[in-house]
């Protein structure tokens, strides 16, 4: 068993040493209480080591906490020993995602429109280049054959060919079970149906969606709409490391060249038309709208676009990588020309759809764009910034000169405790909520005819990672057996009260274009789990504890089913 050691942080190293010592101690203890083979007729190998199962506390995520309990019980019934480690949000990320100190890790990924394209879920999260500490391939799935298919998905520009690759990739992932995909959690966001004639919940985001703020229709006499969310925005400066709620409001203030439409396809926004791509796929030419202005009245020019792309390339921790393949940016009248080093199928959705255009006349005077802000947040987006007091509220108003002005005249964003905000909906003090109420609260809200419920499907998902860096999770059959112990339907129907849908693939069923419904399924079937283990030669001792097959060899384990031969 090897532990990753960080050289940069002595405290972490200290904690890890303690952790390692603990593990050694446990192993030594296990040795003392070895099984007495004499009493047993069956010949057995070593005990399968205790499963170190990391999952959220009930405070951090009540639903997944309950699921973690169910999975543990199933595993114990099957003869595994489970070390349940319930952790709060940050400690869980630190231990499981950064320090990679876990056996099983129950976690999840949020889904925003940028993630509708299958690239992120299929490449970033399963390619062998992202298995490092803090990387997105937390399972440590390193399958050279899969790498090839994932790389092809990123490069393939022919839609039909790409689709076939995406389908195949999902089949492979389901066979190999480097990660057990459990459910797309989805949700329901309440709103005041008296004050809002209609809302437009977005895929994966509900009322946080861009098109909700654009298209929600206030009643006749309503000129101010309040929107509640469980935390305040940290920063409106895209040069900083941002969380999803930050991005959801930054995009109201600033315009990109292309916007993701409701189906996650980048469509012309500040750009007049689709980008003109050269035959070799390395030159993208974009023509921008004439006469559009920033909130301060200055016109948006290609110079601003060029300046912004260069600013992002230099400073943004999140977006700079999208621009690393850009060799040169030139402007020509109303056209901006991006010269890439090599063809990139994702340039339109990653760079053109996510890099915002800043006013050069403001940001060129800012020396340290990461730590300093434009305090008025002048952009050219459909909403303009009015005022903000942290933890109290943020005030935005409609930018009337925008080419697509929203229906809401004034938008107030109120952060706060979720329960208080749900009460605020019930006392008609706020108009929309961007978080999921609990099952009991939903029942109560549904009784009020003045309150509407906006249902939406998820793009992201809950999943359980196997740590394939550790020997005992290398066996594909063992992983498949453990996956059989995850009661997915029970999670959605019982624990989540019917919110969301069961999934077996990283691509959500709601994304019909890319989802493969025909892959191996696992769903709380202990008989199937037992059978899988028996077929693979695993045996149980007289106490019901599970053991490796007698002739077990760590170096001769089948890691992947997807590879032929």
């Amino acid at each position, binding site marked *: 068993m090897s532990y990753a050691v960080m050289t940069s942080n002595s405290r972490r190293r200290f904690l890890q040493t303690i952790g390692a010592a603990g593990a050694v101690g446990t192993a030594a203890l296990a040795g003392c209480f070895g099984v007495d083979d004499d009493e047993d007729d069956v010949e057995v190998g070593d005990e399968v080591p205790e499963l170190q199962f990391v999952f959220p506390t009930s405070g951090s995520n009540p639903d997944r906490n309950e699921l973690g309990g169910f999975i543990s019980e199933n595993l114990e019934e099957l003869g595994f020993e489970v070390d349940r480690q319930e952790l709060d949000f940050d400690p869980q990320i*630190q231990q499981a995602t950064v320090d990679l100190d876990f056996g099983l890790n129950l976690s999840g990924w949020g889904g925003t429109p940028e993630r509708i394209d299958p690239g992120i879920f299929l490449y970033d999260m399963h390619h062998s280049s992202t298995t490092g500490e803090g990387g997105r391939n937390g399972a440590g799935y390193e399958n050279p054959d899969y790498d090839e298919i994932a790389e092809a998905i990123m490069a393939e520009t022919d839609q039909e060919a790409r689709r076939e690759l995406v389908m195949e990739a999902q089949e492979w992932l389901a066979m190999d079970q480097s990660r057990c995909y459990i459910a797309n959690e989805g949700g329901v966001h309440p709103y005041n149906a008296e004050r809002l004639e209609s809302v437009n919940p977005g895929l994966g985001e509900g009322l946080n969606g861009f098109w909700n703020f654009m298209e929600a229709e206030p009643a006749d006499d309503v000129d101010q709409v309040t929107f509640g969310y469980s935390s305040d925005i940290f920063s409106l400066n895209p040069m900083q490391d941002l969380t999803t709620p930050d991005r959801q409001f930054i995009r109201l203030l600033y315009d990109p060249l292309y916007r993701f439409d409701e189906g996650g396809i980048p469509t012309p926004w500040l750009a007049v038309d689709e980008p003109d791509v050269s035959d070799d796929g390395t030159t993208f030419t974009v023509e921008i709208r004439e006469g559009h202005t920033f909130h301060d009245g200055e016109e948006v020019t290609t110079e601003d676009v060029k300046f912004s792309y260069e600013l992002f390339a230099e400073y943004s921790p999140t977006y700079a990588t999208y621009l690393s393949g850009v060799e040169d940016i030139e402007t020509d009248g109303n056209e901006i020309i991006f010269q890439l080093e090599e063809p990139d199928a994702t340039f339109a959705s990653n760079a053109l759809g996510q890099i915002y255009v800043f006013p050069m006349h403001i940001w060129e005077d800012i020396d340290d764009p990461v730590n300093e802000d434009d305090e008025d947040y002048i952009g050219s987006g459909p909403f303009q910034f009015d005022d903000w007091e942290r933890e109290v509220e943020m005030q935005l108003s409609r930018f009337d000169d925008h080419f697509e002005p929203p229906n809401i005249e004034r938008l107030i964003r109120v952060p706060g*405790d979720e329960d208080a905000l749900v009460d605020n909906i019930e006392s008609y003090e706020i108009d929309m909520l961007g978080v999921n109420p609990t099952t009991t609260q939903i029942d109560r809200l549904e009784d009020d005819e003045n309150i509407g419920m906006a249902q939406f499907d998820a793009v992201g998902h809950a999943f359980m990672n196997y740590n394939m860096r550790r020997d005992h999770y290398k066996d594909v059959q063992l992983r498949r057996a453990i996956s059989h112990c995850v009661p997915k339907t029970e999670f959605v129907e019982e624990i989540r009260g019917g919110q969301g849908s069961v999934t077996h693939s990283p691509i959500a069923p709601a994304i019909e274009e890319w989802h493969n419904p025909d892959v191996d399924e696992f769903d709380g079937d202990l008989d199937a789990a037992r059978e899988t283990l028996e077929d693979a030669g695993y045996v149980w001792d007289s106490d019901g504890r599970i053991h490796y097959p007698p002739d077990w060899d760590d170096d001769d384990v089948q890691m992947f089913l997807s590879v032929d031969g």
Partner: protein
Amino acid sequence: MGLREYVIRRVFQLILTLWTLVTLLFILFRMVPGDPTSRFVMDYPSDAERQARIEELGLNEPLYIQYIEYMGQLLQGEFGDSAHYRQPVSEIIFPLFLNTIVLMFTALIIAYTVGILFGAAMGWFRGSRFERVGIIATLVARASPEFWIGIILVWIFVFQLGLFPRSGIGGYGGELTMNFVDRYINFDFLRHLILPALTGAIVYLATPALLMRNTMLEVLKADFVEIKQAEGLPERTVLYKHAARNSILPLVTVAAIATGAAMGGSVIIETVFNWPGVGREMVASVSRNDYPVAMAAFLLMGTSVIVMNFVADILYLYLDPRVKYE
């Protein structure tokens, strides 16, 4: 030992206590797994970017260097920049701190005024039905969790009577100002203040009420009370002017410490009523590993308690000449 020497010695002790507090806090926060970048792990394109941020925050330095740097900063009266907001900690904490002080002082003033009068009356009417009911009521209030009292008040005053707004410090969409008068002296703010302040008052009321009653029982045995009664003074005058005044001494310490602790705000009241105060921020910053903000918030509260304790000790010297400094 003279008064001067006593005060100097106490000030020295105060500094020592504060230093211990800072050091303990510093170590405790670094013991918690994770760092300010943990939350963003999934958002960094690669570990290199995250490491760069850790270096930028100086968290790659050995712990003792970070400690020396932090202490140096603190001695210059600076709390540093928040790892999360990338703004000076003082800018973030100050408005929240102000909100907390306004709420907690209102609650404490109600609690101590009502508590003292009520406690004195309970002591005076010892053995009566009034006292028995009073003690039970006080104990119930003291034993009730803050959130429960808050929820009950919300249920009655917001959802049944519709008298007060549910949460926040002002009507949504109003003017956001840091001008103290415009911010706090208006009807809308008052409407928002009443329920959380009342919740706090109910919770804090028990201590002064029970303490006052106990001291009253002692004082009532004293000869001067009997003499005053013999002088034929009205009962009310003897109760509040003479007996109560002499019973108030122990409350000075309790009130001073309560005031100090109140500076840290009440996480629960602030959460239930969505009050943008320093207590909530304290919890949030701890869970985000935003060390500078968490340190500052705890330090502020700890310092208040220590300083108010000191103030109480000094006040004692003046209020009660029998107290000796040794």
